[in-house]
């Protein structure tokens, strides 16, 4: 398997990179604009995070070549992501799951 790094490939990539650059700039402007539109507090947050995730995907996927990396790297990153989500989710869930006296609203 060629790892897509021959001169021809690189020239093709360069075009892609420029496309992504523009997409990222647009994404930035859209996030900012979206913040000035009132969609409801929760929706605003969701939208901003969605755009950020798309941008992150573009950077990681193409600038960092993650769409075509080796298995070793995928394995390492998959573990990392799982543990990161575990840390975040469990901490937050633990924060909300606390003993309460039923009915008395403490």
């Amino acid at each position, binding site marked *: 398997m060629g*790892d897509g*790094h021959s*001169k021809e490939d*690189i*020239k093709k*990539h*360069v075009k892609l*990179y*420029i496309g*992504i*650059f523009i997409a*990222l*700039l647009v994404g*930035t*402007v859209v*996030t*900012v604009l979206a*913040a*000035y*539109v*009132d*969609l409801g*507090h929760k929706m*605003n*947050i969701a939208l*901003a*995070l969605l*755009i*950020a995730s798309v*941008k*992150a995907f573009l*950077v*990681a996927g193409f*600038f*960092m070549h993650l769409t075509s990396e*080796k298995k*070793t*790297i995928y394995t*390492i*990153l998959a*573990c*990392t*992501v799982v*543990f*990161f989500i575990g*840390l*975040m989710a469990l*901490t*937050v869930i633990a*924060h909300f799951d606390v003993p309460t006296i039923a009915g008395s609203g403490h």
Partner: protein
Amino acid sequence: MEVPYTSKPRPDTGLYNAKVGIWLFLASEVMLFGALFSSYILLRVNALEGTWPHGLLNIPIGTFNTAVLITSSITVVMAWASLKLGQFNRFKIYQGITILCALAFMVIKSVEYKDKFTHYQVWLKDGETIRGHIEVPGIEGKPWFMTHKKLEAMEAVDHITIHPDPKPHVASAGGEAPEAHKSENHGGAEEHAHEPRRIEKADIKRLSAFVPAHSTYFAIYFTLTALHALHVMGGALVMAYLWGPGSKMWKTDPERFTNRIEVSGLFWHFVDLVWIFLFPVLYLL
């Protein structure tokens, strides 16, 4: 004796050493920033009502800085691509731009920081809070890092003057309006928001600049952005080295040099990636 696979990839893994190294390092960085993001979430859901400030950062500047970082991100891949194509001079230009972008980012960030250090919030004993620039008698210009404790210690001073801020415009802030505008007992305050106000020292409960101690929001803002800025500086130093003295390696071992540029680029993209999340989370939400 040379360690093998510094420039050519190892056949069975398909990777050269530094690439494994940098991805491992980035994995740990994900956990580092991940933990801080988790803390952000927890502090935010934990915040008592009305204590999580909104719209206190300068959005246009933040947007511009985002654009600067994104630009540096494209130039950094272009620098690598140029080397792959054997165009050393174009590499020099792209890499140079990247470093300039990093500098620009730092300069803008410092200006933003400076702004915050001279911007104040005053909590009055009657529950009202006001934000703005303050004047303290006997101090020239905008005071830096003034705190309630310091003010108490200044015996000659019995009052301060505050120039309140206009209302912030970010929509997501709508959910919890800043308290200054909520308190009913100062009905007229909104219209006269811009007029300077005299505040007696005895009425002040707490006073803080927009510094980490101001609130958990600013605490996490400064921690995250300062840590990020350290990464920017570190990355810029490495790239400057590879641009200058380090680039000699191009003549002796071009493949290894290209790898170094790729690896430093991966780090730089990660720094960019962190900012992509920091910007909306801190500035907009």
